[in-house]
């Protein structure tokens, strides 16, 4: 089926070559980083994780969100998701690919990456995270490919696919729970030491991922003959609404606990992020942008009339996605490191090469997504009007 990605319109090829160009720029920046070291980034002795690990964390959520389509379709027999569940699965493949690449570009000694498998260490959460992410990538490639291949032939997928689909549901929850545990189990990092960390991660994932999916579905409809349909998009819109409410609620729980308890160690990261601490406030404008966009998206989502209008729904999804990207892809990681273990404020800001590498990895993700969506859409276009067998 991959051959379908090799034929396309001029627009398709322009987009693909544009992505290649962006990847090329990122690759050059990465070679620089590879030779000079991570000193090329804004990372420091005090803020030792930054944009890369933030992107990784955010994208694990996007990957896990495929389950929001799989559950209604396979567990509740919600037929309307039949034709777009593949878009969720392929989005997960692209997101996990980016996760792995972000870990890779963050490593001081990337050539030693296999050490994680050669010296398996079950007491390290990172060992489990690499295991569950690898497994999730395989599951989604196999499930997505097998179901799409069956659709193409007009038959039902092989009987071994169903158990894998059921397995992918708890697996999706596990990848984001384990990722939250990377942070939530560290002594002395007050901002991360929270029992609701994994719950908040899942809530933001189930809002952000499906919001991105709505945007992608609308793009697919605009540029191809495959229409994901109005009803599935509306149904996903409701999922996004509930998940975003849960996410904002969980964030407010964190703020209450920190602020009302008045424990300095717990308050300081929030102060740094939203008000500035000891005259340092590089993240303040960004965090308020995130908050305002969250409120805007909630207003657009909660009122049914606005949500039912696809234009305002798209706007809501874009606002929500940017809001969560700032909150989780940036603020969450930096807030854990500022102030540092000596209660000193040492700030972080990404450098140009670091930003180019980050954009380059996103471009690789979009390229993987474009190729997989091209295949899926081509199959859907060929089999238009045919009922699915699974």
């Amino acid at each position, binding site marked *: 089926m991959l051959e379908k990605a090799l034929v396309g319109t001029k627009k398709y090829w322009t987009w693909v070559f544009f992505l290649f160009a962006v990847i090329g720029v990122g690759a050059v920046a990465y070679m620089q980083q590879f030779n000079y*070291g*991570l000193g090329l980034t804004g990372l420091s002795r005090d803020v030792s994780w930054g944009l890369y690990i933030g992107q990784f964390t955010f994208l694990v959520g996007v990957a896990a969100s495929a389950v929001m389509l799989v559950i209604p379709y396979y567990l509740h027999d919600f037929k309307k998701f039949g034709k777009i569940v593949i878009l969720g699965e392929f989005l997960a493949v692209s997101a996990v690919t980016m996760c792995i690449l972000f870990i890779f570009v963050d490593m*001081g000694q990337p050539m030693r990456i296999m050490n994680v498998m050669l010296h398996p260490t079950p007491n*390290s959460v990172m060992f489990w995270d690499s295991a569950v992410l690898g497994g999730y990538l395989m599951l989604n490639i196999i499930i997505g490919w097998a179901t799409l291949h069956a659709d193409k032939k007009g038959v039902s997928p092989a009987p071994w696919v169903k158990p894998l689909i059921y397995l992918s549901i708890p697996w999706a929850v596990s990848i984001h729970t384990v990722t939250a545990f990377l942070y939530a189990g560290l002594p*002395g990092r007050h901002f991360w030491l929270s029992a609701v960390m994994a719950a908040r991660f899942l809530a933001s994932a189930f809002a952000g991922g499906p919001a991105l999916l709505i945007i992608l579905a609308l793009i697919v409809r605009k540029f191809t003959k495959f229409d994901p349909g109005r009803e599935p998009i509306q149904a996903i819109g409701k999922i996004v609404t509930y998940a975003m409410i849960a996410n904002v609620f969980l964030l407010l729980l964190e703020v209450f606990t920190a602020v009302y308890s008045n424990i300095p160690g717990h308050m300081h990261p929030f102060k740094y992020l939203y008000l500035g601490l000891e005259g340092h406030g590089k993240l303040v404008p960004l965090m308020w942008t995130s908050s305002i966009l969250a409120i805007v998206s909630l207003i657009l989502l909660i009122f049914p009339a606005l949500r039912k209008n696809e234009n305002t729904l798209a706007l809501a999804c874009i606002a929500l996605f940017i809001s969560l990207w700032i909150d989780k892809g940036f603020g969450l990681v930096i807030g854990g490191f500022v102030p540092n273990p000596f209660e*000193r404020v*040492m700030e972080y800001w990404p450098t140009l090469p670091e930003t180019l590498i980050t954009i380059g990895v996103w471009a690789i993700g979009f390229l993987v997504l474009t190729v997989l969506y091209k295949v899926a859409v081509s199959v859907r276009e060929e089999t238009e009007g045919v009922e699915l067998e699974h």
Partner: protein
Amino acid sequence: MSMDRRDFLKLAGLSTVGMGAGWVLSRPGDILEASQFLQTKELLNAKQWAMVVDIRKFKTVEDYKKVIDACHKIHNVPDLGNPKDEVKWIWSDSFDHAFPGQESEYMPEEMKHKQFVLLCNHCENPPCVRVCPTKATFKRKDGITMQDLHRCIGCRYCMAACPFGARSFNYRDPRPFVKEPNAEYPTRMIGVVEKCTFCEERLAKGLMPACVEASNGALIFGDITDTNSEVRKVLADNYTIRRKSELGTRPSVYYILDIPGGDGNA
């Protein structure tokens, strides 16, 4: 037997996976734990090395400098000249930064401005060891929290896990920044994490850590499980505190405070 391209690829794929698995399984010697460290004849033994910092004996800037320099010189610790890329094994900081949350605005002025010697605590329950995904950082049988710099992948999870900011990362090639390289001790490469090792290379030769030797008795070093050791005697005779002991990492570095007005030898 005929075989189409698809079946051939399937078989080829399976064989590759099988060969990979076989290769790993056939090398148990490499997978097994290597002996932790060289058991030399002169080796000083302990169950848990510990240090007491007698802050009363640090009086002048020189007292700190000679201790810090002794360590950084023999261990080829680079001077990168900026706080972002900084690498340090032992350093000093004021009370409110060394013991955040313990300070009070009414405490003696002298104490407020006093510098405290800081280094890796060689915790009995180290979070850095718990999180390391490759066992590159590990707890030795003598209690030293050690690292294998050839196994470290540079993920910096240990830096996030350490509540004491004890760990430094080689953000760039450190070698050009080592002023007078000591040929007896290795320099480090780019992209790995490093910290104080309680001078395990000196213990192997029967010597005390370099900082202890240079401190004129201000740093006391010994086996905390040995009731007759000097550290135990000092701990029994003096009130000491540890950094962030509430976190349960059980630091092995203790501090005797300078209490103005007291006779200093309570």
